[in-house]
């Protein structure tokens, strides 16, 4: 599967709550960040958990979020960030 995003692109995590084995943490859904790197393509874990093959492999991104954008009441410094691996089907352009 083609990578839809490049390093440096602004992306938004889809705000959805499907059932099943999801590797997109709740706290990051609906948040906007920047692609830090493309990690490669991996079988979709949501499919693997259902005993299917998870193919085609999903591009996986490392996305960097400003902590202040994730937690409105964040008490650290403005520059602090959190980086999370997110599969392509959970991202949309921002």
């Amino acid at each position, binding site marked *: 599967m083609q990578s839809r995003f490049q390093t440096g692109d602004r992306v938004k995590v889809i705000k959805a709550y499907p059932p099943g084995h999801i590797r*997109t943490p709740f706290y990051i859904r609906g948040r906007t960040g920047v692609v830090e790197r493309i990690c490669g393509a991996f079988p979709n874990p949501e499919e693997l958990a259902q005993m299917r093959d998870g193919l085609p492999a999903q591009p*996986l991104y*490392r996305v960097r979020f400003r*902590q202040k954008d994730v937690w409105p009441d964040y008490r*650290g*410094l403005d520059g*602090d960030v*959190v*980086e999370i691996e997110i599969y392509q089907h959970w991202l949309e352009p921002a």
Partner: protein
Amino acid sequence: MAKPDAGKYQPLSYFQLMEVTLRELLVEKGLLTEEQIRKEVEDMRGRTPERGARVVARAWTDPHFKQRLLKTGTKACEELGLDVPGLKLVVVENTPQVHNVIVCTLCSCYPRMLLGIPPDWYKSRAYRSRMVREPRQVLREFGLEVDEGAQVRVHDSTADMRYLVLPMRPAGTEGWSEEKLASLVTRDSMIGVSVPKSPGTRA
């Protein structure tokens, strides 16, 4: 909780019972042998943070190796003869401007191939939920005050990659051998909740 008495009969816990059941079924169905399971447990116990410390010490002494390590972590580890099957390693470098720390909020993903079995606190709900939410406070509770001028970068390993922190080389170690440097690198400094030992510290 009472300490288990080695000489006393202890009923199996729910998860112990599940483990025994699963293991016996795997053997009975011919998917694994008891010898394979024993060997895997032995190998798992044999992996210690000293493996990670070797990688860090090499990166401190060889700038070209460090470049390769930051670019393609797994391949660089293989150069050191470390057998890291299945590991997709991302090494993140601490600098005076950036302090990195690793957590897995969803479960307990950890670079076992380099650090061995994770400490219990790494798997605790408190660490996993608080490290992404208030990292500076949690680091303070580990005894680490991150400079106000530095960014805290939390890495939540939610999927296929595993993370290792490359800590900063302590001052006063100029001319040290790789082996001696490795003795300063602790497990916690490679998770990012601490920094390496100072040259003067007693082991």
